[in-house]
């Protein structure tokens, strides 16, 4: 189903999509999207949504199932509290992506902004995966409680840090992988950055295979690079703050 979004308010657009999903439609092509918010929200079916244009904020918020593929950049709040599904962004992504995400995948080919993957958490078979092709800014992985956050550092100028300041602040679960050096000064206390082992590389291979397929990237070359793994020392980062 093809929907021309121009002239439609996001609420009308989403209603059309939801109505069609209820009718059993599984393939959507949205054209002339320009700032339409909440695409994919409130849909619990694994439908495919192709977005031409620039989607609005909270793309895939509270989403549970749809597979959204964008044509270029996307804005803030992608995958907010997302439960399941896929978001693919060939360009760059804005701030606050994957906030409190519990499941599904977000693939960004370019860079992503500030506060990526805050408080992502995993539970039982649900494990959120966020993969950023380029770099991220400050507060990446803050309060990370579960899931995998991968920064590949592709196409970056030499010497540019791949993560911003205050990386992994309050992290108490999950794993971050950064393909390249991470200046320890950018990390908050309570986490450690170590070189990866063979197990990690296998994990990365499994996670990156669909990512590379999505963007036609050379999997072996990317997996073969230098990776640093960031993990928390404890699941209880704030034990000493209070007088009991």
């Amino acid at each position, binding site marked *: 189903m093809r929907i021309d979004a121009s002239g439609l308010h996001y*609420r009308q657009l*989403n209603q059309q999509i*939801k109505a069609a999903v209820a009718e059993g439609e599984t393939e959507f092509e949205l054209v002339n999207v320009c700032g339409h*918010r*909440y695409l994919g*929200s*409130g849909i*619990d079916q694994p439908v495919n949504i192709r977005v031409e244009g620039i989607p609005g*904020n*909270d793309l895939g*918020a*509270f989403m*549970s199932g749809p597979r959204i593929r964008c044509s270029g950049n996307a804005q*803030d*709040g992608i995958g*907010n*509290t997302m*439960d399941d599904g896929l978001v693919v962004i060939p360009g760059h992504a804005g701030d*606050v992506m994957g*906030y*409190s995400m*519990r499941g599904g995948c977000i693939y960004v080919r370019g860079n992503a902004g500030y*506060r990526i993957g*805050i*408080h992502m*958490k*995993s*539970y*039982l078979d*649900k494990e959120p995966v966020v993969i950023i092709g380029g770099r991220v800014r400050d507060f990446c992985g*803050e*309060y990370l*409680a*579960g899931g995998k956050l991968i920064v590949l550092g592709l196409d970056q100028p030499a010497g540019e840090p791949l993560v911003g300041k205050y990386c992994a602040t*309050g992290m*108490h*679960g999950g794993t971050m992988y950064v393909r390249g050096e991470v200046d320890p000064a950018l990390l908050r206390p309570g986490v450690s950055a170590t070189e990866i082992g063979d197990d990690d590389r296998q994990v990365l291979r499994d996670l990156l295979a669909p990512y590379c397929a999505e963007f036609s990237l050379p999997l072996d070359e990317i997996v073969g690079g230098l990776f640093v793994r960031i993990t928390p020392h404890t*699941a*209880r*980062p*704030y*034990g*000493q*703050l*209070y*007088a*009991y």
Partner: protein
Amino acid sequence: MPLTTVHPQFIIKRDMDLCIQCGVCTRQCSYDAQKIDPEDGRVSSDPRTCVGCQRCVTLCPTGALVVTERELHGRSHPNWSLQVQRAIHRQAESGGMLLTGMGTDKNYRIYWDNLVLNASQVTNPSIDPLREPMELRTFLGAKPERVEFDDEGNPVSQAGPLLTLDTPIMFSAMSYGSISFNACYSLARAAKNAGTYFNTGEGGLHRDLYEYADHAIVQVASGRFGVTPQYLDAAAAVEIKIGQGAKPGIGGHLPGEKVSAEISATRMIPEGSDAISPAPHHDIYSIEDLKQLIYALKEATNYSKPVSVKIAAVNYVVPIAVGAVRAGADIVAMDGTRGGSGATPTVIRDNVGIPIEFALAAVDSRLRQEGIRHQASLVVAGGFRNSADIAKAIALGADAVYIGTSALIALGCHMCQSCYTGKCTWGICTQDPYLTKRLNPEIGTRSLTNLLRAWSLEIKEMLGGMGMNSIDSLRGNREMLRGIGLTTEELEILEVAPVGR
């Protein structure tokens, strides 16, 4: 115990003529203040660890025990009171922030006690609530400004999704994790019995409580614990928690040791891992972000349920509350500075925020001035102690109130303010299975249902006295209030006349 400068706060008196050495007190004390001496097998007390919870006193079959507050002894000083010294000693020993539970115990003025309600005499009749129908039904949510009709005379206007309350009292947000399952279960069942709502707090909705989800307001807080499409779907309403009266601007933190298997399943985080609620929602840094989240939730629930925004009453509560209404909130819940908490840095609890009386009066007035009072309902919270407080709040302009602490007291809480220790001897604010059993949900449900019934009866009685048979006539009716012992400025903000006028 190494030498400590922190003196005991309580005295445990045991009447040895009455003590039968049955040991019930030792089994009830989770603070090791009552113990069996391993040498002679006799019961002994240790006041140093006593928190004054009164559990042993209550359970002692012979009434042999008294636990009283111990006067702090020492040279008093108007600035350096003994309480102040004690706090410094504790911090000098621990190096940590002082934590506390429940609402502030600082002696701020309780303005409810300076407001009196009206009653009919002669000029209009009072109503006998025993004989006449008294309506407490309350709807929360957005209502149309006016009703428009089509040519056939059928109304075309619609009220937004609404919550229907049989009594204007709801249970405040208390998460599973901060309180025990049995406490949550009691609240849920009592809410259903009484035709009102309970609030999940940010702890998710336990699978056994989905049965009561049509009486649940589910919270979306900064930690987003247990927030799934199913959770949002099941609820009667969704509440975005921005702030809490006991700790405005402060996040929450459920320590890993309390994250049991059940809590883990409910919050959907691994067992034993800290449950951290960041101070802000990281997707809300401004009012239009709030709007973005409100509409994200409306979109996710297909506009089928009201969205509430809960804020703490602070200096700028008026523009914040008004902004939340403009941002699409169907309900604005405000929690005053006397609001409760399971664990809060004492310094925040006792020094941040404003009393709910003023917040309510100011916000209600402003919304009316701006002509948007119908767009949202006001729910207030923060230390409601009795039905009179509630009636006064409604007269000031509230649609309904949230009660938290009084509900906990109904469940057995004795205000020891040690919730944060996780050792609540009453089984309310703990996850220790040995302690949580102490709150029998059958009894809990009954107690809470009774409390709501009793207060509803009293509200009807007061309404009747004022010559009204509907709560609609009290809501925002400040004519029914008079202030006593208040300054001109306070009266002005409350828009209440002084007694005698």
